[in-house]
């Protein structure tokens, strides 16, 4: 892992009377590789490395007994700051508050809708679920099964057009007096103009309090473009990283933080409906570093 790799360079650095820029640059090259191998998007890597370089030079790393460790710590701190920025609880002050889930196909939106509903219901909120996915076979059934599992009402939207479905589901939510309505949407690709127009239209129809990007933690370099494009059409207020129970380094998380500045709120840690945790920036930063 990165700490071991840098251990060797640190050893080399310690031998010198003062740490020159070339020794630091060797360390930074190793870091660059490690971050790329962890699926951090290249533009984000460049930004991070230049930050670390500046801070390492400023910190006069040479004075330390363990210069390599100091540089790693600077990187870890930078990652933590980037990931941990703007932590705040979900904004659910309206009745009903709408949470809109968006993302690529198969990211885990439907499962996450169930997890989120369970968490909020456990917190004492009156939650309802709805799906405006009219394309994927048995998509609405899937969410209905989850709703039943956690004893949360499923409100069916009318018709087969996502915007009309969202509208009618919201009306039902108002009538039912629920506090939170979680809206599950169909997966989509950001280069699909029609579907990107659709998510923007659904967003306009339900005016959500929270717009959460559901992102598979194993996403590679395109996490940057995907986050950028979704954020452009529907300004995200948060992100949920899924499938973190796999041995994924999760560098995609940094793309979200870097591009949108939105906080990663939660992580999915398994397939079960209770496999859901609040995001821990420091711990996740450590995981990206390997």
């Amino acid at each position, binding site marked *: 892992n990165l700490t071991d790799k840098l251990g060797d360079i640190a050893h080399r650095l310690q031998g010198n009377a003062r740490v020159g820029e070339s020794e630091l640059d060797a360390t930074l090259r190793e870091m660059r*590789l490690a971050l*790329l*191998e*962890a*699926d951090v*998007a*290249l533009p984000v890597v460049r930004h991070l490395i230049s930050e670390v370089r500046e801070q390492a030079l400023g910190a006069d790393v040479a004075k330390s007994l363990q210069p390599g460790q100091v540089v790693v710590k600077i990187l870890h701190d930078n990652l933590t700051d980037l990931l941990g920025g703007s932590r705040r609880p979900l904004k659910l002050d309206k009745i009903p508050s709408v949470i809109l889930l968006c993302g*690529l*196909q*198969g*990211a*885990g939106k*439907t*499962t996450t809708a169930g997890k989120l509903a369970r968490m909020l219901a456990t917190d004492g909120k009156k939650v309802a679920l709805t799906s405006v996915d009219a*394309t*994927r*076979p*048995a*998509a609405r*059934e*899937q*969410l*209905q*099964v*989850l709703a039943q*599992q956690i004893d949360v009402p499923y409100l069916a939207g009318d018709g087969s057009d996502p915007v009309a479905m969202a509208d009618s589901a919201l009306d039902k939510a108002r009538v039912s007096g629920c506090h939170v309505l979680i809206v599950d949407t169909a997966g989509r*690709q*950001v*280069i699909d103009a029609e579907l990107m127009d659709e998510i923007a239209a659904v967003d306009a129809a339900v005016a959500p309090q929270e717009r959460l990007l559901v992102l*598979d933690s*194993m*996403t*590679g*370099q*395109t*996490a940057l*473009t*995907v986050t950028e*494009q979704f954020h452009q059409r529907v300004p995200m207020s948060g992100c949920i990283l899924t*499938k973190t*129970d*796999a*041995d*994924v*380094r999760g*560098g*995609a998380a940094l793309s979200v933080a870097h591009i949108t500045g939105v906080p990663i709120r939660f992580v999915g840690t398994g*397939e079960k409906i209770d496999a859901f945790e609040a995001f821990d920036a420091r711990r996740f930063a450590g995981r990206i570093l390997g």
Partner: protein
Amino acid sequence: AAAAEAWSEAQWEEAEEAFIMADCGTETALRLVSEAKKRRHQPPLPALKSVMLEMLARKEADYFPPDKPFVLLMIGVNGTGKTTTIGKLASMWRGEGKRVVIGAADTFRAAAIEQLSVWVERSGAELVRQGHGADPAAVAFDTIGRGVAGGFDVVMIDTAGRVQTDKGLMEELAKVRRVINKALPGAPHEVWQVVDGGTGQNAVAQVEKFRAVAGTTGLVVTKLDGTAKGGVVLQLSDRFRLPVRYIGVGETLEDLMPFDGAAFADTLLP
């Protein structure tokens, strides 16, 4: 003319970065560039392309065994596109006049069987299922039985998504494979791992661990209709010598294409 074709160091670096952004991985990106540089008899782009083609595993055209049924086990991480791909493959083979039966061995996920049954209906295949929560190996066993008794050309087994770090589920997969083999010697004739085209370097660990328990013989890469280039395929093919059989380019029955290495290499070239 050859001198005009040569690239500056900056251009090579730009190419290396393009490969990194395409999810080729840093080692592969470096290797593509350093190998291509050595091929002085070729201009840069053709040289890069030829290195890529060498990394892509050759595949024998025909994966069908001499006797029917051809048994195919579909595996992969959660949400990669297994169930949808099964629908597409079934439709393709139905179009060739083949009779297809599909086993709903994802007995765990909400509405998994319902989802598969829609694809079975749309593709004109037949479904074998048991109750939610049934033993996946038992469903696979039953499906093979039906496939043989009914004289089907193709038997496909859909499995639940799983992450390679889940020991219990990886053992379950090993058991499904064993039971298929017990049901029909020689089966499964093919085991294809479905990989999401947007996956980063984790794809390598996925393929490595799945292959150890399931004996993977091929790959299907999905969602290449998006922004992802799927560059990790070079590593998967080179390291595991697994051919990419098909790619998914959308969500409907027709959105499946045979993998074309040359066309794929072109999409990766800067």
